């Protein structure tokens, strides 16, 4: 490894270590009964974010000035096993470094905003632990060179997002909504895991660059082509869950229960674009399969149309903004499927930055334009279309009817059977039992 490579590698490791160290520091600091002061938390967070942004900026500068070639680096041979190694691979190219740097800058902006927004809030430290998990997650997603790293980042994003939606957990509604969002994220995670296993079977390792190159190979036998289509399908499913694409877009307004800074960074700027970034990375694979390409285009278009309609009938500014973001996300997905990768990337970065500013300034806009919330959705010329848009195309109802209710009906039948098998009465209503410690 030559000197420029070594320098970029050191900066990248520093970038990943800083949010991880922040998680560790805040978690360990929370163990004693006396909580960390807000000032201490803010200082630690600022230091970590500053280190992150600086090291990524320097890594990008070093990458550009030394003219390094795009490459995958094995940061660590994490686990060797019989069926092949699990590696911590980082993908180093201009795109991944740019996305990571933009994500770091956005995260930094939100952290500064959050200090004031959450001042004297009971869950101040908890918020920043989850925020640090998010920062680490998004950096892992941005720099992932192997499916294992991508999956780790993906899971961190999902978990921190759900726990932040339930941030005000004294109330029931945020918790209920967080549970719903988490359930959809789990579907997305499961799809990602299935894709991971298929990738291992296809390319013999979890290397994303090998796989995405494989998609562009001209000669692929039928079995291989089917496998690649299956991988592309599961990647689309994973992206759809995380980016609220159709048919999962119903969770987006539910996610607005969290604090505004977290809504800004998750559903305005980064998390909602994580699925797009994944699809963007998998672009060559998607374009290698006609079925996958068509599916992605249809999903993107449906999302864009539905979100554009829904954005016009929302009665609160955060939901309206989130649907506006989603409209663009749908368009970005279509751009990716059509092969306009540079346009899609620029669109993605631009949309993330614009929506971040809009989300963060939303409370001030409301203050300036009294009555904005009450005014939204007043002109309903086509009541049916209005109702359709307001209910987000009825996707939640469809999912509930086709998936959730049958699932619970089956599981509850099993529950009754189990209670009979163990000689217990079926439980009606609240649990009633003789508890022994």
């Amino acid at each position, binding site marked *: 490894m030559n000197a420029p490579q070594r320098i970029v590698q050191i900066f990248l490791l520093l970038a990943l270590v800083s949010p991880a160290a922040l998680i560790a520091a805040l*978690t360990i600091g*929370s*163990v004693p*009964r006396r909580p960390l002061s807000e000032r201490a938390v803010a200082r630690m967070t600022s230091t970590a974010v500053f280190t992150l942004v600086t090291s990524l900026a320097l890594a990008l500068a070093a990458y550009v000035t030394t003219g390094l070639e795009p490459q995958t680096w094995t940061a660590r041979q*994490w*686990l*060797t*096993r*019989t*069926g092949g190694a*699990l590696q911590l691979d980082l993908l180093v190219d201009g795109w991944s470094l740019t996305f990571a740097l933009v994500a770091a800058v956005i995260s930094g902006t939100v952290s500064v905003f959050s200090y004031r927004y959450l001042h004297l809030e009971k869950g101040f430290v*908890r918020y920043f632990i989850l925020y640090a998990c998010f920062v680490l997650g998004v950096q892992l997603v941005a720099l992932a060179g192997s499916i*294992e790293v991508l*999956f*780790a980042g993906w*899971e*961190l994003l999902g*978990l921190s997002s*759900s726990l932040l939606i*339930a941030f005000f*957990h*004294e109330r*029931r509604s945020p*918790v209920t909504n*967080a*549970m719903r969002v*988490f*359930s959809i994220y*789990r*579907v997305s*995670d*499961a799809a990602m*895991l*299935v894709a991971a*296993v298929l990738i*291992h*079977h296809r390319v013999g390792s979890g290397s994303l660059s090998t796989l995405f190159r494989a998609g562009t190979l001209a000669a692929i036998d039928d079995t291989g082509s089917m496998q690649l289509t299956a991988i592309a399908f599961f990647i689309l499913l994973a992206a759809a869950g995380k980016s609220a694409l159709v048919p999962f877009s119903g969770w987006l307004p539910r996610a607005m229960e969290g604090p505004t800074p977290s809504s800004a960074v998750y559903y305005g700027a980064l998390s909602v674009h994580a699925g797009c970034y994944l699809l963007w990375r998998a672009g060559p694979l998607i374009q290698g399969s006609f079925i996958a390409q068509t599916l992605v285009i249809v999903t993107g278009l449906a999302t864009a149309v539905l979100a554009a309609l829904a954005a016009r009938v929302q009665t609160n500014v955060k939901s309206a903004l989130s649907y506006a973001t989603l409209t663009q996300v749908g368009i970005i997905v279509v751009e990716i499927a059509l092969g306009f990768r540079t346009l899609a990337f620029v669109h993605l970065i631009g949309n993330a930055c614009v929506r971040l500013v809009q989300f963060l300034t939303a409370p001030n806009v409301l203050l300036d334009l009294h009555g904005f919330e009450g005014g939204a959705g007043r002109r309903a010329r086509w009541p049916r279309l209005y109702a359709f848009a307001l209910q987000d195309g009825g996707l939640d109802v469809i999912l509930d009817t086709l998936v959730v209710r049958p*699932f*619970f009906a*089956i*599981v*509850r039948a*099993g*529950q009754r*059977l*189990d*209670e009979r*098998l*163990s*000689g*217990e009465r079926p*439980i009606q209503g*609240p*649990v009633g*039992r*003789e*508890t*022994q*410690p």
Partner: protein
Amino acid sequence: VISLPVILWLASVFGLPLACVLLSNTRMDSRRLRVVAIVIALFLTVITTLPFFWEPLRGFHIHLPAWVPGTGAVLRVDELSLVLPTLAAGMWLFTIVATPTIVLGADGLRFTAQSTLFTLAAFLTEHPLVLAAAWAGSVTALRGSLMTTRSTKRHAAGRYLNVSTLLFVVGALLITRPTRHGSALELTALGLLVAGAMIRKGIFPAHAWIPALFEHGRLGPAILFSSPQVGTYAIAVLVVPRAPAELLRVVAILSLLTGVYAAAQAIVQRSARRACAYLFVSQSALVMAGLDCTSREALTGALVLWLSSSISFAGLGRCLLVLEARRGELDLGRHHGAYERKPLLAGTFLVLGLCCSGFPGTLGFVGEELLLGGAVAAFPWLGFLIVASSALTGIAVLRMYFALFAGRSREVPMALRATEAAGFVAIVAVVVLTGLIPSPLVRSRESAAESLFTQRVAGRVQAGE
């Protein structure tokens, strides 16, 4: 020839919990007894880690005289059993440290010491009769704890345990009879052993007793009985080397289905104890599935998942016990608001629960990743049930977390005791550190899997396959 270090080591391993059993029958003050028990359990944990570092203890086998029926070492420490005594001893230590004083008492100490003693005996033998005796002993210890409960519904669990013990003992007796590999007698014996282990581990359709045991029995002894997974060990040493592939495939498929079914059940339970029990059944079933997939990778995954699920499940159960001691029964239909008073407990619950669902950065992820690869290779479609199980487990865990820790707290302010907090921090540290640096543990499990696999291949060659 038994060397002096081995004799001393064995005397300490079995003598220490035995001393605790004897002491708990005296009139010693309960608090003082607890301190003594903690010291004993601590020593035991240290002693059982010696085989890792001390050459004379690494890899010894002691056989019974030739006139005693049955094959296999009566006492052994090798790659498979290397970490298991430490697991059993560590769980006992954690149980004593993390169980509220009000709950434990002299009775509780006796049950836990007895249970640990029999679990240790089981983990250090491969002789069918000795294993069957340890099996029956641990069931007796659990039944002793059940007798102290007032619930009449404990009998269901007792019946299942009796049947499983009977099947296992008969199977062990039959397998000690000299017979050729693949004979009808051996197949019958293996079938009985598998049936006994399946009941004990709660594999569908013999799973319903575990939630009943957790709900109506004493939670502490139930956790200590279930979490080390003696049934898994019995399958690994007695069945996997001998059983025909068809039998193992059937068990693996049933186990995979149980993994998904139990994880789904955990989502709809209103009782926290039952939900926890179903989570255990799901994890335990996945371990069983891995053992029966007959591939090295799946075996390694199962052995790693065994440790991860045992540790995390023991921790989850203790979290429930700590909460119950302060607020009574836990109904998942409402929010209990425990985060406000016990953020450390909330964090512990979440990390251990996520470990069960295979979250990256925990030991559960490593086990599940290995198991998934091996299972998909063995069952290209059914193997993906592990993914479904993991997704459902994650949902069940977060639902439990929100129900227990979200909301407003109405309890009397009662923080965790220092020993409880130390126990929880330690157990979280174990699952996270082994999850971040898994290689040493995985290497050790891989060589254990390799040895099991070699035994199996030799057995199948003898059987003429």
